[in-house]
């Protein structure tokens, strides 16, 4: 009996609704520091869009789900969004492996998937498919954004530290390749690859110092970054050694460093308080008014993801997946970071990031000397991408 009851619960389906449904899934409990602001960004966008009349005469409805942080659960959750909720667009995901699994499912089930956050290059290149589009500047792009400053320093001996999984591995590979191309005499003298979240910072700092590098490239973030920074500060690793760190300037990670923030590091990130373009000011004011909190990098990603879906729906004039896919190709739109294009070639958006240096201000870390790096300028040439994408 119990079991029949359970089945009855499962079978009961939701009432038919007239809204256009965006199905979003993410690892809310695994990466809450990034994803709570992200959710707020999405909700702000939904409110704005529906407040000004919705899309195609209908309201947008956002359905968010926790994907449990692993591909197996994520695929089940995505199936639920597709077949039970009958969403018109799938979006979200954070980690590379989850993003790739959902992207693969989207191709199998022929549903538009806007991968908002996963940074892996493979999702648009080696494993790219017709139905998947990715918003954020990838690991490759963000690494490439740091290269000009790295080359300017003319340092010969580089040490590298990265979290040992897809993101850190491909950041490291791209960095080595790009720097070597720009500066053939470069040497990579040490590599530390601690497991994600488990860096043994004291030992790692000592091992890097042993190699006597001229400069350091790191892709650490979150708790690993904080441990590394504190140990490095105490042990004097950064005193005479410039450091480049991917994504460390995102408020999610920078703000936790407080008075430990090491001066002069080159990072990619989001100096939210200092960007005063009209489009960013509008977003920031609206966000602060709505949430009584300042926007993080995640807020922008969530906000733009929802607008992307809305713009694609408007351009397609329909909720038909094939039409949406065609509309996404070459879609041009404004964002708080300025205009972006969704490249037809590899389904990557040209959203950029800010490159700048760490400094301390009133006991808090900030980004200074920053400039905006437009994503369009940091992608490999057309032919190279075409070779990677086996469609």
């Amino acid at each position, binding site marked *: 009996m119990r079991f*029949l009851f*359970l*089945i009855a619960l*499962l*079978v009961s389906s939701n009432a038919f609704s007239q809204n256009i449904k965006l199905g979003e899934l993410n690892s809310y*409990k*695994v990466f*809450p*520091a990034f994803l709570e602001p992200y959710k707020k960004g999405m909700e702000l966008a939904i409110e704005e869009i529906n407040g000004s009349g919705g899309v195609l005469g209908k309201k947008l409805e956002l359905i968010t*789900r926790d994907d*449990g942080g692993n*591909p*197996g*659960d994520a*695929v*089940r959750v995505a*199936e*639920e969004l597709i*077949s*039970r909720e009958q969403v018109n667009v799938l979006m979200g995901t954070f980690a*590379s*492996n989850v993003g*790739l*699994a959902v992207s*693969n*499912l989207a191709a*199998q089930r022929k549903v538009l998937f806007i991968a908002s956050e996963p940074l892996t290059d*493979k999702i648009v290149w080696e494993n790219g498919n017709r139905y998947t589009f990715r918003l954020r500047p990838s690991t490759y792009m963000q690494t490439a954004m740091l290269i000009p400053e790295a080359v300017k320093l003319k340092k010969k001996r580089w040490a590298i530290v990265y979290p*040992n*999984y*897809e993101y850190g*591995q491909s950041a490291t590979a791209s960095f080595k390749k790009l720097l070597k191309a720009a500066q053939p005499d470069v040497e990579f003298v*040490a*590599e*530390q*690859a*601690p*497991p994600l*979240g*488990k860096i*043994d910072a*004291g*030992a*790692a700092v*000592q*091992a890097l*110092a*042993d190699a006597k590098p001229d400069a350091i490239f790191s892709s650490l973030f979150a*708790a690993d970054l*904080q*441990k590394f920074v*504190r*140990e490095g500060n*105490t*042990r*004097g690793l950064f005193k005479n050694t410039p450091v480049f760190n991917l994504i460390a300037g995102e408020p*999610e990670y920078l*703000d*936790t*460093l407080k008075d430990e923030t090491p001066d002069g590091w080159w990072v990619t990130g989001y100096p939210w308080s200092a960007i005063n373009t009209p489009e960013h000011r509008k977003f920031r004011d609206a966000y602060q008014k709505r949430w009584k909190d300042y926007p993080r990098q995640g807020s922008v990603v969530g906000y733009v993801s929802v607008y992307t879906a809305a713009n694609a729906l408007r351009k397609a004039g329909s909720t038909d997946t094939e039409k949406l896919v065609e509309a996404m190709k070459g879609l041009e739109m404004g964002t708080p970071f300025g205009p972006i294009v969704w490249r037809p070639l590899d389904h990557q958006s040209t959203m950029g990031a800010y490159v700048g240096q760490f400094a301390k201000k009133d006991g808090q870390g900030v980004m200074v000397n920053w400039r905006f790096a437009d994503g369009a300028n940091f992608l490999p040439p057309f032919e190279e991408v075409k070779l990677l994408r086996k469609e």
Partner: protein
Amino acid sequence: MSWPSVLIQFLNGLAGASSLFLVAAGLSLIFGVTRIVNFAHGSLYMLGMYLAVWLAQRIGFWPAVPIAAAIVCAFGALVEVAVLRRIYKAPELLQLLATFALLLLIKDFALWAWGPEDLLGPRAPGFRGAVEIAGAAFPEYDLLLIVLGPAVLAFLYFILRKTRYGILIRAATEDREMAAALGVDQRRLFTGVFALGALLAGLGGALQIPREPASLGVDLTVISDAFVVVVVGGLGSIPGAFVAALLIAQAKAFCIGLGYSKATLVVEFVVMAVVLVARPWGLLGQAQVAARNPGLRQASFEIPRKKFFIGAAMLLAVLALIPLASSEYTMVLLTDVMVFALFAASLHFILGPAGLYSFGHAAYFGLGAYAAGIFLLQAKLPMELALALAPLAAGLGALLFGWFCVRLSGVYSAMLTLAFAQIAWSAAFQWDSLTGGSNGLVGIWPAPWLASKTAYYLLTLALCTAGIAFLWKTIHSPFGYALRAGRDSPLRAEAVGIDVRAMQWAAFTIAGLAAGVAGALYAFSKGSISPDAMGIQRSVDGLVMVMLGGIQTLSGPLWGAALFTWLQDAAARNIDYWRAATGAVILALVLVLPNGIGSLFQSRK
């Protein structure tokens, strides 16, 4: 490495060892006396960290440390009195389920109370800077830790050796029944030991904040490290825990120093596997006195009667007809339920009848899943063949690992299974060319005739039913009886000519094979596979399903799998704090139905 850097890495190792020892000592004490496998120990440590950071902002670092530890200690005592005390008589491992529920609750509590962002604590006043040692700057605070670890060891040693309370603890560690027979009040002793263990965990966490931010992932990181240290040192042995912490911390520091940082992914598990194979009771542990009168005798599994077969046939018929009347997503969810039912049944097969604990059963699930993907994508075999061959890979893995594991007993054996599972996991994680590394393999889809959700669901239903039926049939075969004889009385079983180890080895392999079937079905249902399919989390999920359903019934694990899968799915969809909700439901079930939900379906005697 130059000599100065060898010295510095050695000091790094010492500081790391002190941190590890502080958390492991409490776990070891708790296990030694109460036999509780305390999954929430890392959560107590995490609680200590958050409390210390929070308090330090208000009253300064040094006062914050003892206060945070004291709060965690009080919380530990409360947990023991309110929850654990009620279930000491329940089947072993049930406490594991209760502490797992606590882990979920504490995690969401920390998220609710302190928010999602990592909290980097202050530096310790008086120990902010570094001193120069051999030309390198070495943090003063690490020097303090190097002293603190042995100081806590000495303190515990004094308590255990020189005080009456300590003597009682040691007596209970060595022989719980005898201590009880001599009039030692077990209830007070257990509460005291649990509180002391919690105090140590809280202290360890609080002392860690100058080195590491309080973050929500700490609990799981710490718990696996602490378990390894406790087992390598020998369960219940405090000096052993210290030696093991030293060994593991030094191994890590020198892996990093010598440029093999990738090895830190798995080095502690390799150390544990080597130690356990060479010394079955850990470095300083002793053979445990077998509990003379286990809290509850293992019931013999009922021989299925007519009623059972009618019920099973009806259930099967309903399941087979479901596709006619339900949505696609129901198929998807039920496919997961079937897969995990087989996985749980295979784990139950060694946990129940064979009496072998396994904390690493996901290894065989993962091997099956990966083999399916590799056969399909790399070897280009047809899907049907890949599905048929994949379980053999899992069976082979179980054959190999099982040979070692059946040589140990109890928690040692369980931890060896965990060590092997972690080694297999790290191989999947690192072997980019074969397994796709951390991304895993994508594009593992079933053949066209199985592509529809309904077809795949029916295939899963058929294979899982066959697998479960085979396992159950085996339990009631002479082989199954021999297994149970070996579990209940190894000596008498040997005496009547049963080769207990060989039987257990065979059982281990059969269970691995069945888990491999589940894994392969899982891979094709998801279209992709990545290392977490064989991670610790999956092994723990399996244990939770079996214990939730009840280890003493045959059908219990299936109900456990169904309930747990459905609960996670439903809770994650409807509740923000779904982990806490899952934890609360599990905790309630543990208290109300200590013999599992399967006991509801048993005929009354």
